[in-house]
């Protein structure tokens, strides 16, 4: 049974380690914050200029001057700080942020990622995604294994305009956990009840299956 978006986030939360500064993209990645173990210390960075984000404010306590990169009103936790956009991207480009979690339209077996532009459709822009993927040492892509048309999003080569080259290290989808190796996507875990064959069928890029593939533990 394939994972829900919440479950994808839940599985990714296990990749968040004590002491990590983490940048979460919009969509599934945002949900990861809800599942991080509370016995570890993690700080969330938002590229519009805040470190140490907390939960949404209580009704009536929204401050228009305190938002996240999704333009949502937020709160901050003790130890938080605000800074300008240049310093924010110093954190990202300078690899001070340990982990970037973001969505994608396509990922290629060489680690290329496309998540910002569909030719012929309205292009909203890349925001901070190109800086994030080009800089982060540790990028996890959170996405559905296939698109709405049922086509695989894990390809031998991206067909859409790229966001970054050779940068994705790990992918968590509704079907599987995969790592990007020199030779292709290495299948590491299956969603509970999902077979290797189902994953193979949904993967257009080269899938490497070595030995027994365990089911994920959420």
């Amino acid at each position: 049974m394939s994972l829900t978006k919440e479950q994808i986030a839940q599985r990714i939360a296990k990749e968040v380690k004590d002491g990590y500064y983490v940048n979460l993209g919009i969509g599934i990645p945002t949900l990861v914050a809800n599942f991080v173990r509370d016995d570890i210390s993690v700080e969330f960075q938002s590229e519009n200029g805040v470190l140490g984000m907390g939960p949404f404010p209580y009704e009536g306590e929204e401050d228009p001057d305190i938002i996240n990169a999704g333009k949502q009103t937020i709160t901050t936790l003790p130890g938080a700080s605000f800074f300008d956009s240049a310093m924010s991207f110093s954190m990202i480009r300078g690899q001070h942020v340990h982990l970037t979690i973001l969505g994608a339209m396509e990922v290629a077996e060489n680690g290329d990622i496309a998540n910002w532009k569909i030719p012929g459709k309205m292009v909203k822009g890349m925001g901070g995604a190109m800086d994030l993927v080009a800089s982060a040492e540790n990028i996890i892509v959170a996405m559905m294994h296939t698109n709405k048309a049922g086509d695989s999003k894990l390809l031998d080569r991206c067909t859409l305009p790229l966001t970054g080259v050779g940068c994705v290290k790990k992918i968590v989808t509704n079907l599987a956990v995969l790592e990007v190796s020199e030779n292709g996507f290495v299948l590491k875990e299956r969603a509970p009840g999902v077979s290797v064959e189902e994953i193979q069928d949904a993967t257009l890029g080269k899938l490497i299956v070595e030995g027994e593939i365990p089911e994920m533990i959420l």
Partner: protein
Amino acid sequence: MINKKVPSATEALQGVRDGMTLMLGGFGLCGIPENSINRLVELGVKELTCISNNAGVDDFGLGLLLQKRQIKKMISSYVGENDEFERQMLSGELEVDLVPQGSLAERCRAAQAGIPAFFTPAGYGTEVGEGKESRDFNGKMHILEHAFEADFAFVKAWKGDEAGNLVFKGTARNFNPVMCGAAKITVAEVEELVPAGELDPNSIHIPGIFVQRIYQGAAYEKRIEQRTVRKRQ
């Protein structure tokens, strides 16, 4: 103390003309120079090139300038949330140059700092890197990006003093500090304008040397783009 205070947006925007390149602070609708934008609408200047992370919404922020067809070209990182923008862009009326957010910030900061160009990994191997010089540093490819050139920068701060010193609040800081001094003339509007000496010299985000004109904004709507809250238990 060199006094930068002007009475209002009218005086602050003296010299803005058709065809100029403007920088405008803010992220989404947060920390945007509301009063300077309103004055730009009043002035009716046209053929503007605007360097701004976003393009406002239909009826607020830069959307107001788009409604009146005052913008020829936007240089931004993300421009959703705006139907009029989309219409003008798809019809070819509006030119759009999309720049990665970090490069956008750094290209402003480079202009402020007299750095004509710098290398960044962002955009290498993508459309953004096409036609740009690229180079390997420590085994990683980077592209050369250039400082912006602009005529006016419009920024919004929380507090400011007559010497032009600025203090920003929360995430309304964003692009505002990096645009100060990045254009020929920097115009700062503030929620509260105080006499020189009232701000702690240790806690000033932008020293007055980067600001040519400062005025107190008449009013601030500070519209929230995505109101997200949690229920009290």
